[in-house]
């Protein structure tokens, strides 16, 4: 695919990223926010992996008779980033559980009301 159509992959990935980003900033439910972050980050991973693809290349595991491989570096970066995303998700959800225990709600609007009252 030549011309601007050769970028279609990136455009769809951007739509995906923005879906996640929208969930984070528009939804008052705390678990939904964490889900949004997860979707946002996963879409960024897709962005990186897309950039690593080389046409007609194969997975970067050296084999006899193959001489075109996809770029291994973004794969490594994303392996690290996936772990970071897991760590964020786990911590975020732990915070949500504690917030629910002390506020009785996981809705941001309700929490604000309670904080204003105190």
């Amino acid at each position: 695919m030549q011309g601007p159509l050769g970028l279609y992959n990136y455009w769809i990935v951007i739509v995906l990223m923005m879906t996640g980003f929208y969930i984070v900033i528009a939804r008052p439910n705390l678990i939904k926010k964490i889900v949004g972050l997860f979707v946002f980050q996963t879409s960024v991973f897709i962005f990186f992996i897309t950039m690593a693809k080389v046409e007609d290349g194969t997975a970067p595991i050296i084999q006899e008779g193959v001489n075109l491989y996809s770029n291994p570096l973004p794969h490594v970066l994303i392996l690290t980033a996936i772990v970071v995303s897991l760590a964020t998700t786990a911590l975020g959800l732990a915070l949500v559980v504690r917030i629910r225990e002390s506020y009785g709600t996981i809705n941001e609007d309700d929490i604000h009301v309670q904080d204003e009252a105190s």
Partner: protein
Amino acid sequence: MEHLINIVLLGLLMLAGFAIVRTKSLLAVAMLTSIYSLLSASLFVVLDAVDVALTEAAIGAGISTILMLAAIALTSDEEKAPRHTPLLPLFVVIATGAALIYGTLDMPRFGDPAAPAHRHVAPTYLQDTPTAIGIPNVVTSVLASYRSYDTLGEVTVIFTAGTGVLALLGFRPRRRNTEDTGRKKLVILRVVAKLFFPLILLFALYVLFHGDYGPGGGFQAGVIFATGFILYALAFGLSNSQQLIPHQLLYVMAAAGVLIYGLVGIASMLLGGKFLEYQVLANDPVTGQHVGILLIETGVAITVAAVVLIIYYGFVSRRPAPGDI
């Protein structure tokens, strides 16, 4: 053909994404998130990132979903509608998206072999790995040797998450036989779990030690290892699974993995090299690389397995909020 699969998967991802926005039931959202993650793992396979696909499937579709379900069980399932109309967020998102699309216009087209990213540093990794490191999986060689310091950081991140969950949710070992009543019906699950438990652990070891040659490595192995124990806990109850690994041991394991990694670095310093310079660990540089990579991958696997279990136990041993689910 590859383009077709690519487009179909991306389309499904969009569907899943929009469904996540629209769905109100959080349990359904958790499952959709899992599907989203699994779809992206499939996409990674199409895009040649097999290592990433394995990790995404294990972490995103597996562990993250379990954690979300556990958190929902401890909180509540319904989502209230937002109080304000989401005009400002919509504006921010559209502006950000427009900026990103503007940024794509000068990007090299998808799959272009002449893109600068494939011309500068990456070819060195592909050319040098067989001789300098002596393993075929270039992702492992970059991860565990060329950029091993990032991986040390990654282990530290996951260790931080484990410590954080411990600090937030605590970790209370259950007494025996408090929850085993009413689980008599699970005979089939238990038989299968018993059958699979050793196989999962065996598979984890395979993924760990085969990481030099195929997709896999310490991180994936650690997650799979922990999954075995989570399966056991689901089938036989929390207290029984905690009999298998005492929680003190989990602390020690979580710390030990990071320590193994760090000490490999310190050892290479003491032997006259730089931090994490594996060449000095053996007489022959390539053997040194092998030793170093194996040691640090083991360290990664130990910490990851322990931390994932700590996080899982942290969530599950918390008492559910009263009045829900």
